Each structure stands twice: as structure tokens, then as C-alpha cells.
């Protein structure tokens, strides 16, 4: 183990690998900040370039882009309420209110720290228990996946703050949008309206960029928001207070754990990790009303979660050769191009690739921290730019980014449609965050339930009798009961209050 780590650092510390690691995280951060351009698009575009690199070097750079992108994605969320990547959508909820309160520096600082903590936890998990975590992930049957996704969905109802009914409506809308495309179980096309492009479903990036990004730009045109931040950014204003730091310890620990676990499960990914971490914080918070208004926990938890997930996503990819996401498939593609067959024997056959890459993750995360803290002042200055210059650039970037994902004009039209819808949601007080979560979870929920039912030959008892599935379902049921009871109790309390102070007295 120890000599492996040494071997890893020996590989990662060559000047060439260090340079490409830095290039990767720098590009990743930059691309993450740009709305619409995600690490998937960036890695796809840079893949052909890696043909000329050593396989380890190629992977170090592509890996750097990937977790660097998770890091950068939150910057635009906080500053402009435009998530750079779909997983940073949650960070908008509390990050942007903080920026509006003049605490953008603090929010960015906490993001950098939380990302570093999350990333570190993820790397430790990857180094220490990679193969065992991978085996645990393999043990998850379709029924277990279904139960886990259901748990996520139950937790989701609380996300977004404000009215529970509105949250529910948005989750359901997300689930419905998730049904568009080819039904995996029968191969039927659903709601594709004869568009070839809709057969694979609605593009998540197009939807996220529309409902968050474009709608934000539209609402700024209407002049409902005038810019208030003009004060100078001092080093002091970036520093979180002791109270801020105290509040972030718990969320970072929980976020990293949740993210680390979900990242290692093939298919779950960083978006779900960030949402689950946020929902957990709301669940356990004493004062739930602070969320959505600039609660620092609302940044620390999802940011540590998505960065932990970005690191542990490498576990199934590298230890068993099964990529958990589209981005990870491309990473494996990069290995295959170099004649290295990714699979369960990768670690023993190519130890320099595996340990070199992991060592580079440490170095890369340190680079990110060192790179980002001094840049905070620069980023905050973006807020002092007039919107009339920023927004056209933003719209152009969104269009380029979405187009580059699949070279598809159709997806750009989707952005426009979702932008209009998003503006409507914003005006009527519906948060788009639960919509995204429902959209991400819905297809996985349905696919796994139907697969599990097929395997159980249509017998629901067989489905529930599995200990893991059963307990996950029981937790979901308990959470629902808790939520309903809590709702009834506050309703009763409100009634009683009315009786004590009859209307008309004030």
C-alpha cells in the first residue's frame, strides 16, 4: 500500500505530469465557470489531443478537467445565479442570496474549502477502500437502486425552500419530463413528437441551462433586479467569520460522506449527491427557514458532496472497469485508445496508471485550492461588471456549450423553451431545483423499478423482502410519515395560535 502511494507520487511528480495536472484543473475550473460548457463537453473535445500523450498523463489531465469543473461550476452559481454545471444548480439556492447580501467572497471561500474537504475525503476513500467500495456497489441490485432513488425523491420534496406543494408540483413535472424518450423496458417512444433527437430524452444540460441560466437573464432584462454591489472587495470581506466556519464543519462532514458514497455507485453521480446533501442539511436543521436565504450550510454541504462524488466516481471506473457516467466512459475510452484495457485487473496490470492518477488527484486538489483562493477577489469583481456586458456573453456561452454536447441545433432550441418556462416559474414562485432533481431521479427510478419487477417475476413481496431494499424503503416511509406529522403539527399549532389571538384583535 505505502509503496504503491510512493510509486504514485513518483509518477505524478514528473514535470510533464505536474504541468498537465495544472493545465487540467485550470481548464476545468475555467470551463466549469462558463455556463453550459461542462466537463463532459470539454473532455470530449480534448480527447483527440490526448492521443499524443502518455496514457497516465492523458488521464491526469482529463481527470483534472473533471473535478476542476465541479469546483468551478459553483462560482457562476454564487455570483450570477447561473449554474456552470448541473450539479452546481443546488449551490444557487443559498450561494446567490449570499452574494446579494454582499457576502460573495465568503461564499466562494467556503466553496473552495468545502470542495477541497470533499475532494480529499473522496480520494482517501478511493485509495484506502476503492476495491471494497466497488464490490459494495456491485452488490446493489436494481431493487436496491430503486429504493435508494425513492429515498432521494422523498428527501427532494424539501429542497427549494418555500411551499411544499410547489416543491411537489415541480418534482412531479421533473418526473414527467423524465419520461420523454425511449422506454427502456419495451423500446416504445414516449412523447417524442416524431423528433429523432427526443428519442434519447430531453438533454439535462439544455434543461438546466434554460431554467436557471436563460430565465435569470430574462428576468434581469425586465429590470426587476438592480445591482447593489459596488463596494470594494477587501481581503477581510472574503474571510468567513468564526461563526461561519463553525456552521460548516458538520455540513462538510455529512456532505463528503453522502457524496463519497453516491459517487461510487454507478449511475448516481454528482447531481444527485449535491441534492441529497442539501436535502439532508434541511432535514436536520433546527431552523429550516434560513435555507434559500443565504445559509452557509447550503453551500458547504452540496459543494463537499459533489467534489467527493467526482473523486469516488473513479472507484467503479478504475477498480472494476465499469464507468458510472458518460464522462467516465470517455475516460475509459481514453485508456482504450492507448491500448490499455480498463477492467478489474487494471490496478495490478498498470499500477503506475492507477496510483499515478490518484496521486495527481491530491496534487490537483491542492492546485485548485491555491489557484482559487487568490482568484476570489477577481471573481467577485465580475459582479461589478454591468449586466449588459455579462448577459449577452452568458447567452452565447450557453448556446455554444449546449450545441457542443451533441452537435445539436435541436438542443439549443430546447434551451430557449426551457428558458421561457424557467422565467414563468420564477415569476410564479416555483423553484426549478426540485424540477432538476425529479428529472434526474425519475428515469432511474422507473427503469430500476421495472427491471426489479421483471426480475421478481412481477411479485412485489419478493422485491420488498430483500433486507437492503426493505430497509431503504422503510427509511423512505419513515421520512414521509415524519414530514406529514410535522406538517400536521405545525398546522395544529397555527390553528391554536389563531384561537388564542382571534382575528380582529390586531
Amino acid at each position, binding site marked *: 500500500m505505502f509503496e504503491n502511494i510512493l510509486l504514485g507520487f513518483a509518477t505524478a511528480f514528473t514535470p510533464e505530469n505536474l504541468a498537465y495536472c495544472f493545465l487540467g484543473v485550470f481548464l476545468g475550473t475555467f470551463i466549469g465557470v462558463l455556463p453550459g460548457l461542462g466537463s463532459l463537453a470539454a473532455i*470530449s473535445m480534448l*480527447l*483527440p489531443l490526448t492521443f499524443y500523450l502518455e496514457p497516465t498523463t492523458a488521464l491526469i489531465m482529463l481527470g483534472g478537467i473533471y473535478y476542476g469543473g465541479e469546483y468551478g461550476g459553483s462560482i457562476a452559481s454564487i455570483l450570477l445565479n447561473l449554474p456552470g454545471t448541473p450539479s452546481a444548480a443546488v449551490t444557487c439556492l443559498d450561494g446567490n442570496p449570499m452574494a446579494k447580501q454582499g457576502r460573495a467572497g465568503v461564499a466562494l471561500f467556503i466553496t473552495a474549502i468545502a470542495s477541497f474537504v470533499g475532494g480529499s475525503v473522496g480520494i482517501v476513500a478511493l485509495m484506502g477502500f476503492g476495491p471494497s467500495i466497488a464490490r459494495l456497489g*456491485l*452488490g*446493489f*441490485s*436494481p431493487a436496491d437502486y430503486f429504493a435508494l432513488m425513492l429515498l432521494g425523491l422523498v428527501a427532494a420534496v424539501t429542497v427549494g425552500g418555500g411551499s411544499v406543494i410547489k416543491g411537489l408540483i415541480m418534482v412531479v413535472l421533473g418526473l414527467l419530463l423524465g419520461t420523454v424518450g*425511449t422506454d*427502456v*423496458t*419495451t*423500446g*416504445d*417512444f414516449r412523447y417524442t413528437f*416524431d423528433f*429523432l*433527437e427526443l*428519442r*434519447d430524452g430531453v438533454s439535462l444540460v439544455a434543461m438546466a441551462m434554460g431554467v436557471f441560466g436563460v430565465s435569470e437573464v430574462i428576468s434581469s432584462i425586465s429590470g426587476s433586479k438592480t445591482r447593489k454591489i459596488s463596494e470594494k472587495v477587501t481581503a477581510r470581506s472574503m474571510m468567513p467569520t468564526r461563526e461561519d466556519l463553525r456552521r460548516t464543519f458538520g455540513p462538510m462532514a455529512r456532505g463528503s460522506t453522502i457524496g463519497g458514497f453516491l459517487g461510487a455507485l*454507478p*449511475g448516481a453521480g454528482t447531481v444527485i449527491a449535491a441534492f441529497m446533501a442539501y436535502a439532508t442539511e434541511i432535514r436536520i436543521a433546527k431552523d429550516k427557514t434560513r435555507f434559500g436565504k443565504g445559509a452557509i450550510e447550503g453551500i458547504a454541504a452540496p459543494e463537499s458532496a459533489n467534489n467527493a462524488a467526482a473523486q469516488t466516481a473513479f472507484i*467503479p471506473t478504475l477498480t*472494476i*472497469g*465499469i*464507468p458510472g457516467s*458518460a464522462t467516465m*466512459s*470517455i*475516460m*475509459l*475510452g*481514453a485508456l*482504450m*485508445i492507448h*491500448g490499455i*484495457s*480498463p*477492467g*478489474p*485487473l*487494471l490496478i495490478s496490470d498498470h499500477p503506475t496508471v492507477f496510483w499515478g492518477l490518484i496521486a495527481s488527484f491530491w496534487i490537483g486538489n491542492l492546485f485548485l485550492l491555491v489557484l482559487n483562493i487568490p482568484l476570489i477577489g477577481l471573481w467577485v469583481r465580475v459582479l461589478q461588471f454591468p449586466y449588459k456586458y455579462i448577459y449577452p456573453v452568458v447567452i452565447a456561452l450557453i448556446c455554444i456549450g449546449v450545441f457542443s454536447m*451533441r*452537435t*445539436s*441545433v*435541436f438542443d439549443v432550441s430546447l434551451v430557449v423553451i426551457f428558458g421561457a418556462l424557467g422565467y414563468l416559474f420564477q415569476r410564479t414562485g416555483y423553484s426549478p431545483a426540485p424540477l432538476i432533481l425529479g428529472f434526474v431521479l425519475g428515469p432511474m427510478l422507473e*427503469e430500476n423499478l421495472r*427491471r426489479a419487477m*421483471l*426480475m421478481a*417475476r412481477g411479485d412485489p413481496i419478493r422485491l420488498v423482502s430483500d433486507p437492503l431494499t426493505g430497509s431503504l424503503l422503510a427509511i423512505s416511509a419513515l421520512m414521509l410519515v415524519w414530514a406529514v406529522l410535522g406538517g400536521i403539527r405545525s398546522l395544529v399549532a397555527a390553528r391554536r395560535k389563531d384561537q388564542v389571538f382571534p382575528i380582529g384583535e390586531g
Partner: protein
Amino acid sequence: MPSFHWNKIRRSLAASVIGGLAVVSAGATIAEDYPTQPITLVVGFPPGGSTDVVARILAGHMSNTLGQPVLVENRPGAGGTVGISHVASSDPDGYTLGVSGVGASILIDALGRDSGYDIDNDLDVIGVMGTLGLVIAGRNGLEAQTLPELMEFAKANPEALTYGSSGVGTPGHLAMEYLKSLAGVDMLHIPYKGNTPLLNDVVGGHVDIAMLTTPGAAEHVRAENIQPFAVSSPDRSSLMPDVPTVIEGGFEGYTATLWNLLVAPKGTPADVQAKLSDALNEAMKDVRVVGEFATKGLAPTISSPEQATQFLHDERSKWIGVIETAGVPKK
């Protein structure tokens, strides 16, 4: 798609302006000079996937032969049909080519799911870009050790075994239905969204049998995570030479392979097609390409446009036969 039409109009306009003539059709390229500009090779799947890798290996070599870069452009979607329908509506000038697999060339239409184009009338087939075998593999812990044993067990216990495929109407699904109908057995089909989650579930032991691509399965076979029963190609695979073919397992005449065709919009001039065909065949003979193909479980193919078109027809009658014998429902 409106955008495609616009592309066409825009390109025609550009051609007319540059030509400075009143009557210049969009496809009028002087074939002797071809190619004078970079060629776009459209792949209907995302980068890094098996189709993309094939395209990039061949495009690299063809660029050298043709003296112009052959650029791979990924237009993923709807089983490859989004990319191929883009090629079908492009100008037949030899500058937009496509890589069309079994699904986009045959299965999607044969199963009654409109692909948005008609391969015979909208596209010219220039050559075959190699073939790839599938492997029937089982989870660890199955009692059967060979294909005949497995089929015997399945026959004695109808619907007791589950088999996974990478999706309804994919070659893996149909190849398994084909085997089922030949062996007269019944197994429960569990469709997945692509090869990766399927691999996950067979390695994890949640599904009994899976039809996997040989390069995707080879490492798991080597690590004894899964148990190979037979390969679907007519000959044994270079990646797992110890694994017998389905034919060796007693199913005479059974073959199911994945392949890709190099296609161009219908009406591409014959001499342009000949140049492309020569460049493709040249690449197939190259030592480095052959070596790279072998490590990825691909078998190189040499074909003229006529042979490739004939290959498409033969494969189509075979798969349509499979769909009919196996009774796969059409939409």
C-alpha cells in the same frame, strides 16, 4: 429538420457565390482534385465509445492517404440515427461521410421504428469498417459450464434464467432471441440502457446471462468475474481464443456480429466513392491499424462499394429473418 435544410441552402448559396456561375449545383465538385478540403466523418455515438474508436483509428490513416484531414464529428442520439440522418441530408460532395452500424443501417427500420431516412435511397455505401463479435457470458455461480449445458438447463427450466441485453432491438437482444429460437428455450429478457449497466449487473450477479461485446467483456473474463459460454462470430475472437463459437456449440449457421459501414449521401460521384473506398481499404491493410483492431477485438474487412452494398443486403435479410423467426414484436 429545418436546420439541415438551412445548411443545405447555405452551402448551395456559398457554392454558387464562389463558383460565380448561375447554375452550380451543390454537389458539383471537380472529382479529380478531390479532396480539396477537410472531410467530416459523422459518428452517431459519443466520443470514446466503440464506434467512435473505430472511426478515429480509420480516419487517422485515411487522412494520410487522402492528403486532407478526416475529422470525426460526434452527433450522438437515437441509436446512431441522428448522425446518419444528418449525413443523408448533406450534400453528396464527399465531404460529409458517416459511420453507420447495425442498428442505424438495418434494425431500427426493420423493427418498424422510423429512422428518418431510407438507407437504400438516401445513402451510398462505400465500404465495411470492420466487424466485432459478441460473447454470451454468465454470472459466476451458474452450474452450466458450456453452451449446450446452459441451453439444456434453460430448456428444462423455462423462464428460470434471465438474460440482459443493451436494449430492446439492439443486436445483442436479437442475437439472443435468435439463439433462443434455434435452441427452443425460453429465458426472460431484461433490457438495459447500454452495455455498461448490463456489465455491472452480470458481474454483480443480478442477471444470469448477458450478450456483451468482446472488448467490453474480455477483461472481466480474464479476471474471472464472468463466465464466457460462446462467441457469436463465425470464428473465435482474438481477445478470448479459448472461448468456442456458438457454431461449435452445436448451432449450425449461427452468426451475429456488429459492424460499421462507411456511408455517403446518395449521389456521391463514382470517382469520389472510389477514392474513399481505396483509402478505406488501404487503412485496413495497414500494419498499425490491423494491430489496433486486434487489441480491440475487431476484424478488418476489405470491400468495394458494390461488395459492401451486397453485404448490407445479406445482413438485412438475415436480421429480418431473425426478427420473424424469433417473433420480436414490431412497432
